[in-house]
């Protein structure tokens, strides 16, 4: 009986070890995990125009359904580079994931959406209102910070209602289940064009040029294949520069990858007053976001710049 049990457990452990085993780190193609979002467009551009191949890299840009799944794939070693909102990357680092933020990919683009007929005209009108958000996300931390700045306590003066999907939040706002929804582009511009939504403000009004999505790399890649990361970032910088000069073409590429929306809408949502595609990043802005997350109880401890970032690759490559 004991022998049989031990044998079964042995098989289970072997399966678990194989399933959780890390992917190859020493060579071969590199996998980059991104999502379908405006500020992830530099990765689509680099992929479409062969910027990675120009650097002599065999890179595969993979569209992943959620930020959490990108981090989980990086944890397992299935991917070596990823892009998510800065809040996701900070939470992952606080949770022990061995990654470093190495560049920016976009700023702004998030804000607060209300119904056009809601009568809500300013942030002060949000007192005692229900606001949809995704706790701990880039839609949440700048929202709390904006409320704080306006003298509203995020936990007392408004009711934050937690969701997990942008689509569910928009539906809840449309049907009057909530009074406002923290949201992002191009969904906010889309709701205005449809006539039912109104962008109350972008969070850039409270934190100018706030960081949105960042690029990060697995620690093994940084230490074992630094030249690969340097090349990835060179391609990234080139793609960001292309996106900032060719807004219409970038919108068309985004539509191609998003599989929804029309190019004109996406082009409008790329306007400089709404968001900015960027690769430059500072340690201070990331530390500030981490500090806010700690203050709002979203991460257990304060994180230092050394734990969060490695900007040497960006500085060396540019």
């Amino acid at each position, binding site marked *: 009986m004991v022998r049989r*049990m*031990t044998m079964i*457990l042995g098989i289970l*452990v072997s399966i*678990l*070890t194989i399933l*959780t085993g*890390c992917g190859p780190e020493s060579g071969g193609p590199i996998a980059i995990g991104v999502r379908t979002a405006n500020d992830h467009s530099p990765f689509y551009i680099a992929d479409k125009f062969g910027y990675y191949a120009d650097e002599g890299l065999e890179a595969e840009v993979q569209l992943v359904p959620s930020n*959490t799944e990108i*981090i989980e794939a990086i*944890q*397992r070693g299935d991917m070596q580079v990823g892009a998510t909102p800065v809040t*996701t990357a900070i*939470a*992952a680092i*606080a*949770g*022990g*994931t*061995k990654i470093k933020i190495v560049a920016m990919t976009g700023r702004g683009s998030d804000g607060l959406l209300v119904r056009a007929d809601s009568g809500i005209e300013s942030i002060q009108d949000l007192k005692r209102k229900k606001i*949809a958000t*995704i*706790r*701990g*996300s880039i839609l949440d931390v700048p929202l709390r910070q904006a409320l704080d700045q306006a003298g509203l306590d995020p936990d007392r003066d408004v009711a934050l*209602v*937690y*969701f*997990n*999907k942008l*689509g*569910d939040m928009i*539906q*809840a706002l449309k*049907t009057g*289940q*909530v009074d406002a929804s923290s949201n992002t582009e191009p969904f906010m511009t889309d709701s205005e064009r449809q006539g039912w939504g109104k962008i109350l403000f972008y969070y850039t009004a409270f934190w100018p040029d706030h960081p949105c999505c960042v690029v990060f790399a697995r620690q093994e890649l940084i230490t074992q294949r630094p030249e690969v990361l340097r090349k990835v970032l060179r391609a990234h910088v080139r793609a960001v520069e292309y996106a900032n000069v060719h807004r219409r073409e970038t919108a068309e590429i985004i539509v191609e990858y998003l599989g929804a929306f029309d190019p004109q809408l996406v082009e409008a949502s790329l306007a400089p007053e709404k968001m900015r595609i960027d690769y430059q990043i500072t340690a201070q802005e990331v530390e500030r976001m981490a500090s806010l997350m700690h203050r709002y109880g*979203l*991460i257990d401890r304060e994180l230092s710049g050394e734990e969060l970032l490695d900007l040497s690759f960006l500085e060396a490559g540019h």
Partner: protein
Amino acid sequence: MRGLPLLLMVILLWEVLPRLGVLDPVLLPPFDLVAVRAGTLLTSGELLLHAAVSLLRVLAGFALASLVSIPLGIGLGLRPGLRERADLLLAMLRPISPPAWIPLAILWFGIGDRPAVFIIFMGTVLAMLVGVLTATQGVDKRLIKAGFTLGATRRQAVWLIVLPGLLPAIFAQLRVGLGLAWMCVIAAEMVAVRQGLGYMMIQARNLFQTDRVLVGMATVGVMGWLLDLLLRGLERRVLRWREGLEAHELFGRGGDR
């Protein structure tokens, strides 16, 4: 408690494998760290609150599903004409997973407890319904005929012959349904709630707090086990008359060969 040694061995491996570096502790935090986290959550009262809220939602969804699936399953099982009409709809509804109901749950029930209960109900009711229906079709026709011969009315045949014959299958379906209800708790608590084990696990996953996810999973496991134990106790009391009639008694240790 014959299952305890296997459980302890799994816990031992859970502790040792990440400690020895066989498994990355980020992917599987060692058992003692998870136990410490569980202790912190217990003493702060947070875990009990989440568990109590989830328990109420699970019981509400499960109770509604039982109230609908048992009478409907028996009714459809006894009326072939009705069953044929319902078959297509049931076959099309069954593959729809609980999270797929979320948008409709928000539209129909708003936000809060009601959509959560609805999602648990939808994830539970159809499997129980089909189970009861199939068991009803399998009731021995000869017993019912004998009842009619002895002068029973249709109502008496259902209450005195079909229903007692179905009780073991109904208890089996209740146990299946209760398990499914717990499995739906994560999907149910994705919708605009701020308490519950599903909520706790989703938030922990989003913030990469794997130890909290594991505490949530273990709590769901323990609560599911305790409720199953209660249901089995009730089953033994209600079905005491079946003692000595069950097939497994012939095969177990010291069975009546």
